[in-house]
């Protein structure tokens, strides 16, 4: 029942996107998200959607799987949409119904914010689906390493992240097992009101925490016994290397950003100028 979480899950196939340097993917994902926030028209979103679709084809990830990652966010999405739709001080009134009023500005803001959220998730899912957790935390560590001079614990942070990511599937499996064991004893996780359901989680959460602490203790012991000392003097099995493909990927994203800028500012500016000339 908990196997439908796409976000943060690695999809192990071999593809052009999978082989990109994790640093490239992190930076480009951030760039793409920033680009999404510059979009001001539906055509711009269509552009981004097309890009994400092509990228998913290139990564050999079923587009449906990518979309499934948005599903857990549906409540937040609906809330975002409704809040922006109804609570906006726009002036161009579209519909008025009692104290509820929908304005042109409200509608467009609601659409923008929800679409941005969707693309935020799509973009990051694309990254995590194509990058193994280890590569991802390696990439983050490398990107943050200039901050080491300011005594920022980049290695420790990356290690914590990779451990956390590494244990998500383990804990999910464990939760599934404990849940089944309690269901075999007649526990009911699915019916009752909110309070009853929250109470029903106790038989799941207590054993889960106990086992998480046990695992943490075991892991610390195992690291200690292999003389783990943090980042100093550690070499890597996989040395990250920027290749031609990474530049190509960067160029693609740059092209996308260029198109968005062109579509968002240049086109309206030209249209306005043409209109001005005609008048």
């Amino acid at each position, binding site marked *: 029942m908990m*196997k439908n979480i796409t976000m943060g899950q690695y*999809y*192990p*196939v071999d593809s052009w996107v999978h082989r990109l340097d994790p640093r490239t993917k992190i930076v480009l994902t951030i760039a793409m998200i920033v680009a999404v926030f510059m979009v001001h028209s539906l055509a711009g979103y269509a552009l981004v959607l097309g890009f994400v679709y092509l990228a998913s084809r290139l990564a050999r990830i079923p587009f449906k*799987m990518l979309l499934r990652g948005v599903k857990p966010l549906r409540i937040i999405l609906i809330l975002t949409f409704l809040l922006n739709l109804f609570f906006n001080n726009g002036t161009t009134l579209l519909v008025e119904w009692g104290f509820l009023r929908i304005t042109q500005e409200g509608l467009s803001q609601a659409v923008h914010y929800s679409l941005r959220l969707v693309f935020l998730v799509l973009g990051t899912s694309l990254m995590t689906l194509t990058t193994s957790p280890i590569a991802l935390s390696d990439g983050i560590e490398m990107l943050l390493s200039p901050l080491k001079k300011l005594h920022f614990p980049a290695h420790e942070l990356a290690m914590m992240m990779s451990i956390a990511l590494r244990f998500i599937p383990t804990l999910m499996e*464990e939760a599934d*097992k*404990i849940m*089944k*064991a*309690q*269901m*075999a*004893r*007649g*526990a*009911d996780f699915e019916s009752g009101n909110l309070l009853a359901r929250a109470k029903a989680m*106790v*038989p799941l959460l*207590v*054993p889960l925490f*106990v*086992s998480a602490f046990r695992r943490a203790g075991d892991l610390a012991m195992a690291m200690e016994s292999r003389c783990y000392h943090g980042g100093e003097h550690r070499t890597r099995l996989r040395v990250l290397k920027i290749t031609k493909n990474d530049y190509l990927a960067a160029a693609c994203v740059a092209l996308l950003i260029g198109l968005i800028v062109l579509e968002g500012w240049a086109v309206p500016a030209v249209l306005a100028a043409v209109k001005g000339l005609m008048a």
Partner: protein
Amino acid sequence: MPIEVKHLTHTYSAGSAFQSTAINDVNLTIEDGEFVCIVGHTGSGKSTLVQHLNGLLKPSSGQILVDGEDMNGDSVDKRRIRQRVGLVFQYPEYQLFEETVAKDVAFGPKNQGLSADEIDRRVRRAMAHVHLDYDKYAERSPFELSGGQMRRIAIAGVLAMEPAYLILDEPTAGLDPKGRDRILGMIQDLHREGVTVVMVSHSMDDCARLATRMIVMSKGAVVASDTPRNLFAQPDMMSGVGLGVPEAAQLCAKLRARGLDLPADLYTQEELHEHLLRLWKEAGR
């Protein structure tokens, strides 16, 4: 009334890159009063199979009938069936959660909606079954007990629901020999009292000692279902699916190869011991 499994197939994550068929077209019947041991190599589908027997997994196709009733039928209350078919998971001590042992054992019967008196009676009875003194342990925290004791508490938690069928998935995994003998002795006592037992096991010696019938699984299918005596007389078939035979049967085969006149179907230590003594006495005469 028996548990019947008909054409059971289960596929995990159907339709994705992670798809795998754990069991494929399994048919079997577990009769009342049997002590069935399910054996098979790691990944042969044993755990998947037993989770179907009390409705924790839903078949991809096929049926499971408990006392003639289709477990996955529309109007069937699965909780009622789970009370009849008790399932003890692997490492069941990881499911303990209550503040006291008595409360943890009472979790199952409490979910059944029984009266306080009945719950108390069952908790006492279940704890007696697993040889833990009620007065000594009832009010202690389950987390301060030893591993073997925790496992017995967890088993008591299932026994307290008084199931007619008891299914155990490797109940002795990770225990020392003494703890193992104690748990197996408990299970044997329950079987004598009339509980039908299904046990998943890796230990051929345990199966030899306890089973009235063994089910051998390999790659998601049942490849043999027979008495331990008949199965252990075919060591080649057993090793073909990655399994061995009990130590006594191994020793017996070696002795036969050296020319000793021993029957092919010896598999318990007691039998071997007896035969060897007789041969020795005869030779002495």
